[in-house]
């Protein structure tokens, strides 16, 4: 009996200027294999399906437990994490491509630092007085924790930005992940002291008004974060802030 195999087609670019080429790989099937273990296998034997020697695939990865947010890529056209993409659940040949909305580095690796810049813009932090022993934190009831914890689960994978039709150079839209963080920090008893700054940061071009309610983000989020709820809540707060600022002149 022939060995069961798994077929991959991987879109490769040696650097941002290079032409894209597709390479095919055929690997021996093993129970429980996922996209990352397959690429590890390719690294130990970097030969394409037609017997040509090549190089190991460049991609981002770290925890392999879908919690660090590193290994987002397009798998059969869908933005998702490679570590949790089990080969047995995927149609073959399995097509791997880099996320398309971010500057390409090499192969499946892209530069997603824009998200971290956006988090700076909206001051996504609680401005504590200092790290000295200043006693216990504010009381938070379980009902509030249950709203905030899911928002705080965002792994910065940027899948929500990749799938958003409005996230592009033209609009400069910050994307759903950042807006959800605004809701998280505005909810916090101390974090809300920066609420007005955050809302104003989302008021102009590239801000929350760019959202076209396609709702792709909430579908793509691997952590099931209620992104569309966050966008509507924050959108309302931004409107109120605009009116307040206008009245104040």
């Amino acid at each position, binding site marked *: 009996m022939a060995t069961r195999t798994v077929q991959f087609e991987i879109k490769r670019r040696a650097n941002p200027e290079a032409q894209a080429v597709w390479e095919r790989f055929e690997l021996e099937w093993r129970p429980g294999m996922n996209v990352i273990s397959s690429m590890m296998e390719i690294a130990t034997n970097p030969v394409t399906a037609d017997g040509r020697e090549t190089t190991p695939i460049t991609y981002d990865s770290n*925890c392999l437990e879908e919690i660090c947010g590193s290994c987002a890529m397009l798998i059969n056209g869908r933005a998702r994490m490679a570590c949790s993409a089990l080969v047995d659940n995927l149609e073959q040949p399995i097509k791997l491509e880099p996320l398309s909305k971010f500057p390409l580095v090499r192969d499946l690796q892209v530069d997603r630092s824009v998200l971290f810049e956006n988090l700076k813009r909206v001051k996504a932090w609680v401005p504590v007085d200092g790290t000295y022993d200043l006693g216990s934190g504010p009381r938070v009831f379980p009902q509030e924790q249950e709203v905030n914890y899911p928002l705080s689960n965002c792994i910065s994978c940027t899948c929500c930005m990749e799938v958003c039709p409005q996230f592009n150079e033209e609009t400069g839209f910050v994307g759903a992940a950042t807006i959800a963080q605004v809701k998280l920090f505005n909810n916090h008893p101390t974090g809300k002291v920066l609420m007005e700054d955050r809302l104003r940061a989302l008021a102009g071009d590239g801000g929350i008004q760019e959202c076209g309610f396609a709702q792709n983000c909430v579908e793509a989020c691997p952590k099931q974060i209620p992104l569309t709820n966050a966008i509507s809540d924050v959108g309302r707060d931004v409107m109120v802030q605009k009116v307040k600022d206008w009245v104040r002149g």
Partner: protein
Amino acid sequence: MAAPRIIVIGGGLAGLAAVIKIAEAGGNVDLFSIVPVKRSHSVCAQGGINAAKNLKGEGDTTALHFDDTIYGGDFLANQTPVKAMCEAAPAIIDLLDRMGVPFNRTPEGLLDFRRFGGTLYHRTAFAGATTGQQLLYALDEQVRRYESEGKVKKYEGWEFLSAILDSKGACRGITALDLRTMELKAFAADAIILATGGNGAIFGKSTNSVVCTGSAQSAVFQQGVYYANGEFIQVHPTSIPGEDKLRLMSESARGEGGRVWVPRTPSDKRPIKSIPEAERFYFLEEWYPKYGNLVPRDVATRAIHKVVYELGLGIDGQPMVYLDLTHIDRETLNRKLEGILEIYEKFVGDDPREVPMKIFPGMHYTMGGVWVDFNQMTNVPGIFACGECEYQYHGANRLGANSLVSCIFGGFMAGPNAIKYAKSLPAIEGDGGAAAELLRQSETNEKLINNQGGENPFKLWRELGSTMTEHATVIRYNKNLKAADEKIVELLERYKNVNLSDKSQWANTSFAFTRQLYNMLELSRTIVQGALLRDESRGAHYKPDFVDRNDEKFLKTTKASFTGEISGPRFEWEEVDTQFIKPRPRRYDAAK
């Protein structure tokens, strides 16, 4: 005098904690990390963080936390720093709470606490089952705040290669590699802090993240830093075996009532749920009635090994046992454990709320690490270390939920101490050795990229991993440890013929990996040889030929130093500070 310039290497909990303290004190920090710091391995910590806040009316105290930690570590940890950590822990929890960590709460809005292994108290604060992620984010946010104020400069996507040492042997900076452009560069600093985590990659598959290779620790070890207690490797009792890694199944599953069992009949063919209670072997509960499923990790791991390999009771004859949560209601499970249950569901395909999980021990943590003094400084002036990469807080076995607190406490110590050191540092002479070190590194890089031979680095790595896992984890025999050391020597020899299929100078991940591999090979010898020399059993280090702890000979810290000789590291032993708690036998079948 200009503000001290400190380099922190590693952006997990320990590194970020150090950065925050330095920035707060007015120092300048350059923060180096292979991955964007928000993606550091600390995100994988699940169950929680220990602090004796005594919010459950149990009479818990920091003294009890201290005693549990020392006892759990089989008396190998120096007691002064452990005592200080346990005393600082409650204030650390308060700080994290103030920073906005969404800890689980009691109905009254106070912090909730759960039980963890090796203690009888509810001492572990938690944010669902993703506590490490939540803690890391809180510190990441504070660092981003300092970054936006210009006090911190991040070098994400840069890999530390070596320390720059001046003619007097003091550290004056680092060399690092830009993993995108492959540019090699020297960076000056008055002091550096290593916060580079664990070394799971030495064991091939572990619960660690991809970046946890121990490469940075090994690099400074090869430059003269002592490596201490390397032989103490924690194998976590409950992980999910996988093709690419072993995924952690948190101790909190047992903290919330999860029970470990196997069918009493070998290879029982009945559907799991139809096996009656009387025919289930809850071996931890039977063997350790006082602590039950919450014995420390080394004890649970050895018990699982015994059940599988000696009693032949693994599920379907496989190396697996059940971790059962199905008796707990779904709502409670979702509220307290959702993160880890999702991991199991996604990667295995079964719902652990309905079907008992199948788990097996997996390499998880290194208690050993670079040697530091009580100020977190290594024996090389100006090189500090904190977090998992150093050896100080866990002795021969780490208790669950003590790692997060040791990372933050260590960082909080290392940062201010590095500033203090930097302030009294004599002025640099010339370039402080930067040009010479840069040359040494560029020669290494040049040689590697042009090397001709037939060895694939990833294959060498697999061989290292399987050797280490087989001979240097749960059960250790001197004969096998010797064989493992010989194997490592063989791999070092074959490394000379390593051939990179990728010779490009852009985002060449196999180049970076192959450099790490060399460091892994050198460091693995401290683990294997340290284990070989320690003829006793203590904490995670277990030798069937020497089953007792031998305080007379081995109540000592192992210190390895690099020789560059084929025989491997040189070893010496240092007295352990036991001034507060007199060593006593460690047993978990009865109360302490």
